[in-house]
C-alpha cells in the first residue's frame, strides 16, 4: 500500500510540475510584475505604530467589549444594530487594521481633549 501511494504521489507530482513548467509567457510576465510590485512595498514608509499591531489589536477588541458592557444600552441593542454579517466583517482578519484605527482615533480624541483642557 505504501509503495502504491508513493508511485501514485510521484505521478501526481510530476503531472503538477509539468503544468508549472508549461505556464505561458504572458502569465510569467504578470507574475514577474506582481513580484516587483510586492517588493516595492519595502520602499514605502512604514507606519511606526503598526509595530504595536498585535498588542493594539487585542487592546482594541477589549476596548470594544468594555464599551459594550458599560453602555447603558443592552447587549441586545448592539446585536440588533450589528447583524451577524457585520460582526463577521468586523471580526475578520482584514478588519484588525480598522479596529486599530478605531483605537488610534480614540487616542487622538483623548489627546485633543487633554490639550483643550491644558
Amino acid at each position, binding site marked *: 500500500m505504501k509503495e502504491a501511494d508513493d508511485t501514485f504521489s510521484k505521478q501526481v507530482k510530476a503531472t503538477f510540475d509539468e503544468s508549472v513548467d508549461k505556464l505561458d509567457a504572458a502569465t510569467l510576465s504578470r*507574475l514577474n510584475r506582481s513580484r516587483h510590485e510586492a517588493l516595492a512595498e519595502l520602499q514605502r514608509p*512604514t507606519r511606526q505604530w503598526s509595530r504595536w499591531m498585535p498588542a493594539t489589536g487585542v487592546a482594541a477588541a477589549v476596548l470594544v467589549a468594555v464599551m459594550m458592557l458599560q453602555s447603558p444600552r443592552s447587549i441586545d441593542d448592539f446585536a440588533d444594530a450589528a447583524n451577524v454579517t457585520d460582526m463577521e466583517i468586523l471580526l475578520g482578519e482584514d478588519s484588525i487594521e480598522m479596529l486599530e484605527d478605531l483605537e488610534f482615533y480614540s487616542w487622538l480624541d483623548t489627546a485633543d481633549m487633554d490639550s483643550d483642557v491644558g
Partner: protein
Amino acid sequence: MDVSTAVFAVSCSGTPITGTRALQKERQLNRFLADVERRALRIAEIGIRDRDDALDLVQDAMIKLVRSYSERSREEWAPLFYRILQNGVRDWHRRQAVRNRVMTWFGRKPSDDNDYDAIATAPDPIGRAPDEELQNNEAMERLEIAVHDLPARQREAFMLRMFEGLDVAGTAVAMGCSEGSVKTHYSRALHALREQLKEYGPEGYGAGEGKR
C-alpha cells in the same frame, strides 16, 4: 482632529528601510517569491478554477507577505505566504457564494466554475507531438478536477504537502490547524484521489517518470 487629518498623520510617519540590510532583505524576498510564485499560482488556480483571479490572489499574498512579514526569518515565509494565499482562496469562495446567491435572487444564472477549461488555458506545445501534448493536458485536467472536488481542508493539505512540498509542521502553520489534522486531511485526500483516478492507471498521468 478629524479622521482625514488623522489618516494623513499616520501615513506620513515612519521612513523607508534603506541600506545594505534592506537590499539584502529585498534580494532574499525576490528569490523566495520567484521560487514560489509559479507553484502558488497553479495551487490557487486549482483551488478556484480561474487563472485571472488566481493571479490576483497570488499578487495580493505577495504584497501582504512583504508588507507584514518581511522581517520574519526566511524559513517562516513559505508557511506564512501560503496561509495568506489560502485565506484569499477561502474569501474568494465566500464572495462567489454570496454573488451566486444574489444572482439567483435576481433570477440570473449563477456563474459556473465548471466553465473553466484547463486545456484551453494550457500553452502551445513545445517540441511535443500533438497527441502526447493532448494526453498530458488531459491528465492534468483530470487531476485538477479531482483535487478541486476534494473537501476544502483536504484539498489545502494535499496541495501544500504534495505540490508545494511543505512539511507537516509548515502545512499546519499555513492551514492554521494542528499537525495531526494535517496528517488526517492529507491521508484522506491521497486515498480519495487514488480511488477517483485509478481507472486511468499510470498512463493517465502523461507526465509520469517514464515520459520524459
